């Protein structure tokens, strides 16, 4: 997935002069996750801008540059640091347009790497995607496959709206078909990543991969889950979820973040609201245990959703 994201950035930088990247270590270092490796030498310091460690001016300057007609891609080294830029993201990126009656356009992309599982401790391992999805005015994208990552990032850069683009650190190694060149995926469209008939697994980002593994395992037992990937959390496209659910009448929602007030709650509530008569069993939720993630490997893994948790949850709703 790393290459897919690099390609998307590279191609958009080549395509549109107004596109530039700013963030910590995006230039000389080549990106903490090597996503922008080689960019600095090719595009130069004006377009690949290393910044001081100052998240609120990184996002704030990106907002300002976007208002003035550029198309900044601001990189937050991890989504955990987005909390230092929270006011710029939720009070400015999200509101500058409507608050001034539509005078301002803020085509900013905020790339943020999130997720747990690397023993980075409680402040560096969060998956708080839902928090950003709560704010109207933002678009929140979180791809689960390399080709979606490429297509959605290119779409995000071309979008005239502010997009929070959430990547998962442990997905960079993920391999997958990526069509070269012009790959564009629409923002705000969920997608069936695995057809099935017995149960609908709704998920996104890293958990898509675990859900697909769980589906394979279940398929061995003759259970065929359909896996729907949300891909975008705001706007949330429920149609493919509902279509699937009306056929399976059972669902499990899988997210990496904490369960309470998480993504699964909204998805479940909407399924009940919009497909009440199709519900055959309580909808299951698989999510992170409600604890700040510990450093210790065993404890951290015990807190994170595992394939077995998904398998078990599916069995429970059947």
């Amino acid at each position: 997935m790393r290459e897919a994201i690099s390609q998307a950035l590279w191609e958009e930088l080549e395509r549109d002069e107004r596109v530039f990247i700013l963030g910590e270590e995006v230039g000389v270092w080549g990106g903490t996750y090597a996503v922008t490796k080689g960019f600095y030498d090719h595009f130069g310091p004006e377009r690949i801008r290393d910044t001081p460690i100052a998240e609120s001016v990184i996002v704030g300057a990106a907002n300002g540059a976007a208002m003035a007609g550029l198309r900044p891609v601001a990189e937050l080294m991890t989504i955990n640091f987005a909390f230092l830029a929270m006011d710029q993201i939720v009070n400015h990126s999200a509101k500058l347009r409507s608050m001034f009656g539509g005078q301002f356009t803020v085509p900013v992309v905020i790339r943020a790497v999130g997720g747990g599982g690397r023993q980075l401790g409680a402040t560096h391992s969060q998956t708080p995607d839902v928090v950003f999805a709560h704010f109207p005015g933002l678009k929140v994208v979180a791809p689960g496959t390399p080709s979606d990552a490429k297509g959605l990032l290119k779409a995000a850069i071309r979008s005239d709206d502010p997009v929070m683009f959430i990547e998962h650190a442990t997905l960079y190694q993920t391999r997958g078909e990526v069509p070269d060149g012009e790959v564009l995926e629409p923002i705000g469209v969920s997608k069936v990543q695995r057809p099935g008939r017995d149960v609908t697994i709704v998920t996104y980002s890293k958990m898509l991969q675990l859900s697909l593994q769980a589906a394979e395992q279940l398929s061995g037992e003759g259970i065929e889950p359909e896996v729907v990937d949300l891909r975008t959390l705001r706007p949330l496209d429920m149609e493919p979820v509902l279509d699937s659910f009306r056929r399976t009448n059972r669902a499990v929602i899988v997210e990496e973040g904490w369960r309470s007030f998480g993504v699964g709650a909204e998805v479940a509530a909407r399924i009940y609201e919009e497909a009440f008569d199709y519900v055959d069993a309580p909808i299951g939720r698989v999510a992170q245990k409600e604890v700040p993630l510990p450093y210790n490997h065993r404890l951290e893994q015990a807190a994170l959703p595992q394939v077995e948790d998904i398998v078990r949850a599916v069995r429970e709703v059947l």
Partner: protein
Amino acid sequence: MNRSEQLRLYREMVLVRRLEEAAAALYQQGKIGGFLHLYIGQEAVSTGVISARKPQDRVITAYRDHGVAISCGISPEAVLAELLGKATGTSKGKGGSMHLADVSVNFWGGHAIVGAHLPLAAGMALADKYRGSDAVTLCFFGDGATNIGYFHEALNLSMVWRLPVLWICENNLYGMGTSVARASAVPEIRQKADGYGMPNSRVDGMNVLEVRQAAEEALAAVRASGPYLLEITTYRFRGHSMGDPERYRTSDEVQRWQQDDPIGIYRTWLTEKASVSAKDLDKLEAEVDQAIEAAVRFAEESPEPALESLYADIYAEGAE
């Protein structure tokens, strides 16, 4: 400065004063909701500084934005209509007093989160530099805003990237009820520029001519070599916003400052040093009174935004 420009500045300051008085009255009548922060006492700042900008120079400020909006060339009609939440307001009634803006005159808002517009200014300046334009971004903020992290991050970045920003601190001695002495480690805001090796100066904000000249010099410095911090000392004659108990200052202090009324000072200069007749100035003031009356009428008679506009202008593409 030629005679007509001299008179234009005077007219602008009087226009802002009358506009604010009208706004205060409309607020008392319950026609304005939310917060209302008046610019009375600070008119020489926006008038003097913005008279020195070029058309391509961007302006951005905080929520105390009526004076800056007028100085940028927004009509009193559009300002008052926004204060009344009307569809004809600068922001179609969605922003209110704290969120005036008009891109067509390069005024990028009124922003209500203290300090948050400083990074926006840095970003706009970056865009101009990126494009090779010689435009400068003029960013106004209060003394209280210089203690928040945004100030530090924005000023530091502006130096590291040599961004064409003129940082303008309107030091009116208080952030709400907290005096500079109780909130800032240094008594003069300009001293903070030393922490960034940034050129700076301090000027009397009650004298529009001195303000204008200081702004001209500062703008030249920015165009020549990058960011500059201009501290302008001033005073707000009214409370922080409507309904301020003003326990933090004495009426004596307020009265002493009111003797330095920027309009009075400039009027004296015009009559004594520029041989403008008091009669001409009175006539001009009478015209301003009428203009404001007309603007109030316009605002009051303007339509409310349609209910459907609730979902308008949130996203550029698609909606939810």
